[in-house]
Every structure is written in structure tokens, then in C-alpha cells.
């Protein structure tokens, strides 16, 4: 669907040039919800704006449905852009137009006739749940409602792709949730491919099927969301994942005697995915290694419908047995364990 080849973007400054994107290669399949996450300054914004050439790439190709956008002239590019809907962090609605007229805007540009416009506008407002707000002005709407108008507007010309530029970053968590639900709905109902950028891992977790992690202008990791969550490899990815998973680990556990004093045992965190959740993991440990396992914390979550759990247990007893138990855990598939130490730097094993 979308192929990005060696995308580079350099902003020339007076003193030195800034390399925002340093050669990005990505493929987005049809019907995917593809998320790009990265810390601020990583080049996310440049990336998504290069996709519809709002920013002209310094080098590289953007191929949408077999058409290389970078090779088009101005007029062809305008036509191609009608296939790429876009929504924005600040909604960017026209304040001088009513909700209905905002949605009609792209249709006017595509030279649709009045009747077509009216039909399409009411259909879209129905879809985003704002049929009763057709004659309101954007300033009379809440942020979430404004973004719904933005979504309706972006869908007006039946695009193949919807680009989301931090679409939920200025919304509160509850509204974010409802907007993400709407996007997922659209993806399923209309089969539109969605590419979004965000700095919030929650957004990725909630709707994306695939994710790429951007750091300093480079994609450092890319894969299915479930894999990135359970087996993050690069530090930046781990940080993003921990923001969601570790946020739930109570602080006071770090002052346990097993953390401060390794002779007393080990505090370990076990992450398990899918089927492994049903294995009697803990009782096997106790049974096979004659050690005590004290469950301190447990949590289960779902990513793309797959259960994903975190368990913190304290192992006490014979130290050698504990070590072999940990080694044994390393070997089981779909389970990732971390030994929590007092330096807070967790050693991670796969």
C-alpha cells in the first residue's frame, strides 16, 4: 500500500543543516493501522508530513498504491493528495464555516456537485456521530467533537489512506479513547489504511497493528505491536513499553529485602503472552526447585486481543535453586523475565 524508500529530510539552517530523517525504509500494508512512535525531536512530524509531501523529502521515494508521489508534478500531486486524508493535532478546521461546510470543503475542491456534497456530508456526520451539529461552528464544539469533524472531513473524498498527525495529543484520556475507537471503526468498516504518529504508547497499544520506533531520525525497531510490547530490543523502545507496564509496578517493591540484599532471594518480574498465561508457571517453580514463591503483584492486559500479563514474584529459599529456577524460566518461550535489582537498572533476559 505505502512504501517508503530511503526517506531523508534535511532542513538547511544558517549555521548547520539539521538532518531530521536519516534514511527511512518502511512498508505499510493495506488495511493496517501503522503507528510510528518516538520521543519528541525524533522526526515523527517530518515523517508524516513527508508522506503527503507537505514537506518535500530531501531524498527518497514515497510510493502509494504503486504511484511514486515524489515524481509527480504539482497538479498530479494535488490529485494524489485527495487519496490521502489527514487529521491534525490542532484539528485545523475553518472557523468561518459550519461543521457541515467544513466537511464539504474537500468535496468542493474535488468539484463535486451540490447534491453529492449534501449526501456525502450527512453520511459522514452520521458516521462520526455529529449529525445534530451540522450547523454549529467549530468554536462551539469540544476538542473531541472538533477532531470528529476533522475525521469526517478527511474521509470526504474516500481516501485510501488516513494520516494522523498526533491526532489525540491535545485531547483528554477519555476523549482520546473515543477518537481511537472511531478510528478503529473506520479502519474496519471502510478498510482504510491508517498511518499515525504519536508519542503516547497507549495509542499504539490501543489501536495499532504494527509499530515502528523512531529515534533521532532513524527507525530503530519495527514489528507487530504485540512483539514490540513483549520483546522490546532497543532502549528507547523499552522505555516506551515500561511507561505503560512499569507504571503499574508499585514503588515500594523496590525497597524489598530481596532487592536490597540478594542473599535473601530474588525479586523477579515475569511477562507472559497469550497461551503461556495458562501454564501453571509458579506452581511448577515451587514444585521443581523446592523454593518459595510469594506473588506480590499481578496484572493482565490485552494487546490486539492477546492477553499480556505481568507478575512480580519474590523467590526465597536456596540461592542455587533460585538461580536454576530463573535459568529455567529463561528457556520457556513467550515468557520474559527480569530480575529487579536495587540499582533500578533491570537486567533483562529473553
Amino acid at each position: 500500500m505505502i512504501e517508503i524508500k530511503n526517506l531523508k529530510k534535511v532542513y538547511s539552517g544558517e549555521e548547520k543543516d539539521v538532518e531530521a530523517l536519516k534514511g527511512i525504509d518502511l512498508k505499510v500494508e493495506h488495511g493496517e493501522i501503522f503507528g510510528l512512535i518516538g520521543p519528541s525531536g525524533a522526526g515523527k512530524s517530518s515523517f508524516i508530513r513527508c508522506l503527503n509531501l507537505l514537506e518535500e523529502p530531501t531524498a527518497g521515494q514515497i510510493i502509494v498504491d504503486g504511484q511514486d508521489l515524489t515524481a509527480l508534478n504539482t497538479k498530479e500531486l494535488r490529485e494524489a493528495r485527495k487519496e490521502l486524508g489527514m487529521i491534525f493535532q490542532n484539528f485545523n478546521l475553518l472557523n468561518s464555516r459550519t461543521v457541515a461546510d467544513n466537511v464539504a470543503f474537500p468535496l468542493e475542491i474535488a468539484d463535486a456537485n451540490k447534491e453529492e456534497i449534501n449526501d456525502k456530508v450527512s453520511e459522514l456526520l452520521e458516521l462520526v456521530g455529529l449529525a445534530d451539529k451540522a450547523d454549529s461552528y467549530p468554536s462551539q464544539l469540544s476538542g473531541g467533537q472538533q477532531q470528529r469533524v476533522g475525521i469526517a472531513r478527511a474521509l470526504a473524498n474516500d481516501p485510501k489512506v488516513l494520516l494522523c498527525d498526533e491526532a489525540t495529543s491535545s485531547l483528554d484520556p477519555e476523549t482520546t479513547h473515543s477518537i481511537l475507537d472511531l478510528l478503529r471503526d473506520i479502519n474496519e468498516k471502510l478498510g482504510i489504511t491508517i498511518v499515525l504518529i504519536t508519542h503516547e504508547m497507549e495509542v499504539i497499544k490501543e489501536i495499532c497493528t504494527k509499530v515502528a520506533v523512531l529515534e533521532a531520525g532513524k527507525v530503530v525497531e519495527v514489528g507487530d505491536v504485540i512483539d514490540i510490547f513483549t520483546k522490546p530490543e532497543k532502549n528507547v523502545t523499552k522505555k516506551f513499553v515500561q511507561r505503560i507496564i512499569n507504571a503499574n509496578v508499585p514503588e515500594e517493591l523496590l525497597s524489598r529485602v530481596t532487592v536490597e540484599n540478594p542473599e535473601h532471594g530474588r525479586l523477579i518480574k515475569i511477562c507472559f503472552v497469550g497461551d503461556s498465561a495458562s501454564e501453571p508457571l509458579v506452581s511448577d517453580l515451587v514444585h521443581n526447585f523446592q523454593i518459595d514463591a510469594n506473588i506480590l503483584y499481578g496484572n493482565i492486559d490485552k494487546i490486539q486481543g492477546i492477553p499480556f500479563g505481568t507478575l512480580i514474584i519474590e523467590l526465597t529459599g536456596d540461592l542455587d535453586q533460585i538461580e536454576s529456577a530463573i535459568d529455567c524460566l529463561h528457556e520457556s518461550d513467550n515468557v520474559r523475565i527480569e530480575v529487579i535489582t536495587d540499582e533500578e537498572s533491570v537486567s533483562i533476559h529473553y
Partner: protein
Amino acid sequence: MKNLLAFIIKDLGLLWTGIQQTFYMVGISMAISTLFGIPLGVGVVVTEEGNILENKYINFILSAIINVVRSIPFIVLMVALIPFTRFLINTSIGTTAAVVPLTIAAIPFIGRIVENSLKEVDNGVIEAAQAMGATPWEIITKVLLPESLPSLILGLTITAITLIGFSAIAGAIGAGGLGDIAVRYGYHRFETVIMVKTVILLIILVQGVQTFGNWLANTLDHS
């Protein structure tokens, strides 16, 4: 009471002619200068660096036109334009003749005001239109101008009030109008009463224009 009525009625004919002439001069020069001033202002904005029709040369020329004309005092401009006025309407004296320098002075004024108004339009909105495949013409007519309309109205109100002031100066070339009456009767002939009356009328006129402009801008403002 009778005296007061008589006092008001006394110069009514003279003042009424003055009001008509002022409206005529300001009205026509406003209409023509808006017609030229808006494209001028739009031109300056869209040819700016990074804007939708970036062109450094055209931008330089348009900015220069605005700056040069605006830096000439109106009375000097009026005199300097006498040959041009004569060429256009065969005379350089009278109410109609005054419309020419008034219009020439107002065009760059409006150009600058339009420029300022358009620059207030959020860049994100322009980008959204670009992302939807809008042409530069569509962005100007469907985004820039409608979005800045309330601000444009307020700017045009300022222009109209400035022109009312300039039209008094145009009395120097026999333009007539309220300002001219104030100068001729009040200053040259020491008829203070007429001067006071014209000043009151001018205040009412300016206040009226401003109130109308504010009302219109407010009505059109949905942000």
C-alpha cells in the same frame, strides 16, 4: 426652543451638501481601493518565503509599492498626482478629482491591512487545505479571505475613517465635503458655529462608521 431649531436649520443646506460630498469621495475611493488593495495585500502574503506562491521578486516589488506610496504625505501625494488626475478625468479640481489621490493613497493602506489580517490565519488551516489538494487560488478564496473576514472588515473600517480625514485635506484642491467646510468657514472666515457643527457631524460620522464596522465584524466572527 424655536431659536435652537432655527440654529440647527440655519446651515443645513450647506452641511447637507458637505455630507453628500464626503460620502461620495470616501465611498468611491473606498470601493476602488478595496478592489485593488485586496489583491495587493493577498499578493504580498502569498509570495512571501514559505507561502503558497513563494516568489521573492514579486514579493519585493509589491512590498516596495506599498512602502513607497505609504511614505508620501497625503498632501504631497495629492499635488504630485495632479497631472495623473487631469489625464484620467480631465480636471484636477473638484470632488471627483479628489477621488483619484484618495484612492491612490488608500490602495497601499488597504494592502498593508489585508496583509496583516491574512497573516493572522493559522498556518495549520492552510496546510490542511493543501493536504486536501486545494489549489493556491482555492486557498486564497476559500481559506485565507473567508477566515480573515472579520479582521478585514475592521481593517477596512480603519481605512474608511482615515479617508474621511484625508478628504478634509482634499479641500485644498476644491474637493468640498465636511472637512473643507470646516476649514473654509471656520478657519478662513472665523464662523465658529459652522465649524463646531461640522466637527460634531464628523464625530458622528466616524463614530457611526466604527460602530457599523465593529458590529459587522462581530456578526461575521465565528471563532
